[in-house]
């Protein structure tokens, strides 16, 4: 026993060295933005592979359920298509114009399908990881959508994985408008219920009702205009009483999401650099 303690005190500097270096490392990654962010993405790239396996396994288990849902969705879509086709034949005379607009819209947008391999909804700042990265064409600041609506924005990318800042993040702010009225505001999440977010600064004179549709405005050039976000659930007064504050029921349940698409806009970089010149 005595021998043990002797040896311990003779090597005390080793332990002190380790403790001090760990302290330094903690300070370094906690308080330096650059090192912290490098650590963050590196850790995610390493974890990515493992999480990918896990996600695949879980997906296999949910296969039957998903199949049922897809079939149902297919039916709805086919029905919708029939309705649209009828509508289109009715408006046949300016169909060439519709086609042109649609082609223009799709020309600079293409979708990169991806799967979520890591997800959290409990924290104040949630993040998701998807299994597509720079090599698949994903870049930071691109939008992420699912079949049911907006999901979030790409935050950081590595070669094969990307980190998403979903709507459920305290810094997330997505430019939204009320369909048909064009009044717009920024969608913010305040923690708590993952199906509830808020839009501030809707002016007093705006006319709208509970149940109106909220969609993306297209102002932020992250999302194209008109992507479904949710519905107005309640109308509150803002804190200063000068405008309305809308409580939005989000259409996308992020807690049970697996398949998403990244929205890549061809001319986004051009737009960004143009705006950077101005501001």
């Amino acid at each position: 026993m005595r021998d043990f303690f002797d040896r311990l005190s003779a090597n005390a500097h080793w332990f002190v060295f380790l403790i001090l270096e760990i302290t330094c490392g903690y300070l370094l990654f906690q308080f330096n933005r650059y090192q912290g962010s490098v650590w963050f993405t590196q850790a995610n790239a390493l974890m990515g592979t493992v999480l990918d396996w896990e996600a695949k396994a879980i997906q296999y288990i949910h296969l039957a359920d998903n199949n049922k849902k897809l079939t149902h969705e297919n039916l709805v879509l086919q029905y919708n298509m029939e309705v649209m086709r009828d509508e289109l034949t009715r408006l046949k005379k300016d169909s060439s114009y519709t086609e042109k607009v649609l082609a223009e819209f799709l020309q600079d947008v293409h979708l990169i399908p991806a799967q979520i391999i890591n997800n959290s909804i409990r924290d104040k700042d949630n993040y998701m990881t998807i299994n597509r990265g720079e090599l698949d064409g994903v870049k930071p600041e691109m939008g992420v959508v699912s079949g049911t609506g907006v999901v979030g924005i790409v935050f950081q990318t590595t070669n094969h994985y990307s980190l998403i800042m979903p709507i459920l993040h305290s810094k997330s702010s997505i430019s939204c408008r009320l369909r048909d009225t064009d009044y717009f505001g920024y969608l913010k999440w305040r923690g708590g219920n993952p199906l509830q977010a808020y839009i501030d600064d809707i002016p007093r004179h705006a006319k709208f009702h509970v149940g109106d549709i909220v969609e993306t405005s297209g102002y932020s050039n992250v999302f194209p205009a008109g992507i479904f976000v949710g519905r107005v659930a309640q109308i509150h007064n803002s804190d200063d009483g000068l405008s309305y504050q809308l409580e939005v029921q989000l259409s996308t349940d992020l807690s049970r999401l697996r398949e998403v698409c990244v929205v890549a806009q061809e001319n986004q970089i051009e737009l960004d650099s143009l705006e950077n010149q101005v501001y």
Partner: protein
Amino acid sequence: MIVTLLIRLLQMLVLIAFQVLVLNHVHFLGYATPMVYVAILLYLPWNANRVGTLFLSFVMGLVLDAFSNTPGLTAASMVFAGFIQPYLLHAMAPKDTVEDMVPTYRSMGKWNHVRYVMLIVLIQQVCYFLLECFSFYNYRELLLTFAGSYVITLVIVLALESFRNRNS
């Protein structure tokens, strides 16, 4: 005992003041910044307490970090250099050395001492720049900054050493 402690404290204060007030503002050609504070490790005698050395380097690093707004960066590199320093000194000191030998040109032999200084500065600088850049993405920039800072630090430290040698 008290006197050595006070002298050590004074040396620390002078080096920190020199670094913070003068050298932190030097960016020679945009690359090289001298980091002379590492010289504190060169003043430690052969029989210095190793745990004490580590804490000294840690505190020194933290104070400097507080001034340059990089918590943990300088401290980590200093603790590492302070950990290696006793091993280095024990390996490089002459065989017939006394217990409380302070490494100088005279006590260690001229070239031996220069080699000792070069190695300690090298260890601290490598550690510092690896942690600062934290990737080899811009390795040319990294190498250039590192080499520039290393050379300029070494020149100033060696100048300080020769000054100290003349006085003692």
